[in-house]
């Protein structure tokens, strides 16, 4: 098994207080890892840490492949059309993937290429964010609540995209508390607990 991302003993501190206990995470080719836990247990923080947006307070993260991060914020420019947003992402992240029009069709937004991104509904914005994953090839996907504000068909779409990505030798780390991914690939769960004050040492 090829390791695409490896974090050893990482933790993050806010105002001197650890957000979660030091944790080991390994993302391997063709495997998905699901982060589970109550609100405020640090799932988002851990994903941002793995993506490199945050620096760990202890431990270190090694990335062996390009990483994509899709969080609560869509990372899209409302002034630009859907297609312009995707063309930007395609050039910005190197390694071009799917052609933007095809990516739009793949996520069910065919025909909306010329619409400004700000005119999309919340669910459509999520779908556009997913299309952003497809236009630039990145092996590691870190998805924070990918099922949020999507309808049932959208949830199935996420599952399909995950399956295709894992088929192509990618790795996925995702957090969820609505719906478990329904995919054929090996799936492991990582349970996180909320930190109680005073047991950080």
């Amino acid at each position, binding site marked *: 098994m090829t390791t695409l991302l490896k974090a050893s003993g990482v933790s993050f501190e806010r105002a001197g207080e650890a957000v979660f206990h030091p944790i080991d995470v390994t993302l391997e080719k063709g495997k998905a890892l699901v982060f589970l836990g109550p609100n405020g247990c640090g799932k988002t923080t851990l994903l941002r840490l793995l993506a490199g947006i945050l620096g760990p307070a202890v431990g270190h993260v090694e990335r062996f492949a390009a990483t994509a991060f899709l969080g609560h914020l*869509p990372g899209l*420019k409302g002034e630009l059309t859907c297609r312009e947003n995707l063309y930007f992402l395609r050039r*910005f*992240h190197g390694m071009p993937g799917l052609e933007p029009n095809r990516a739009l069709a793949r996520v069910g937004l065919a025909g909306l290429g010329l619409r400004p991104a700000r005119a999309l509904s919340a669910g459509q914005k999520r779908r556009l964010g997913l299309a952003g994953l497809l236009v630039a090839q990145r092996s590691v996907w870190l998805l924070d609540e990918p099922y949020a504000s999507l309808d049932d068909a959208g949830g199935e779409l996420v599952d399909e995209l995950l399956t295709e990505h894992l088929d192509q030798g990618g790795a996925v780390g995702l957090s969820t508390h609505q719906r478990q991914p329904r995919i054929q690939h090996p799936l492991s769960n990582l349970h996180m607990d909320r930190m109680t004050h005073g047991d950080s040492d």
Partner: protein
Amino acid sequence: MWRAMGALLMRDLRIAVRHGGESLMPLIFLFSVLILVPLGVGPGPTLLSAIAPGMVWVAALLASLLALEHLFRPDLEDGTLEQWWLGHLPVIGLVLVRLFSHWFITGLPVILFAPLAAQMLYLPNEALGILMLSLLIGTPILSLIGGLAAALTLGTNRGSVLLSILVFPLVVPVLIFATGAVSVAADGLSARAHLTLLCALLMLAVTLVPLAVAAALKLNIE
């Protein structure tokens, strides 16, 4: 690396074009100042030509400040800023690109319209070249220093007042050397010393500011 920087530059400029009127604000602002000043201090050529370098430069500084509030904030709020730290991207290069597009929108128009401004304020013709040269070297410094202040005040709500307070003391040397250069040129002397010092300030800012901006942005993302 160049690909990502080019993509960001094209997107920033495209958004600036979409905003149209907002992007023209610095220029409109420059001319409002230049039209109001003669009304305030009197239209006599002697007085106006004496204060012309200072007025053009103060207008350039204020025009640069106008756009700073929106330099990084929209990107922080829509999540495009955090994507800069995904590991495979040159953050310092992206910071430079963003500061360049700020200069392109606020500094370049001022330089291009400086001859007109100089005419309106009776600036002696022999000083016009030096005025434009001083703006060419000096306005990028304004964008760099302003960008640092914008990155530092990103975490505060309505940081614009704080932003101005941070920027003004830091740009004092730029204003002194730039207006000094134009004044001595208007008197028929060589402005080389002033311009060289301005160049030194620009070099210092270009090398150090992007590092500081990247660090400040990272703090605000955490």
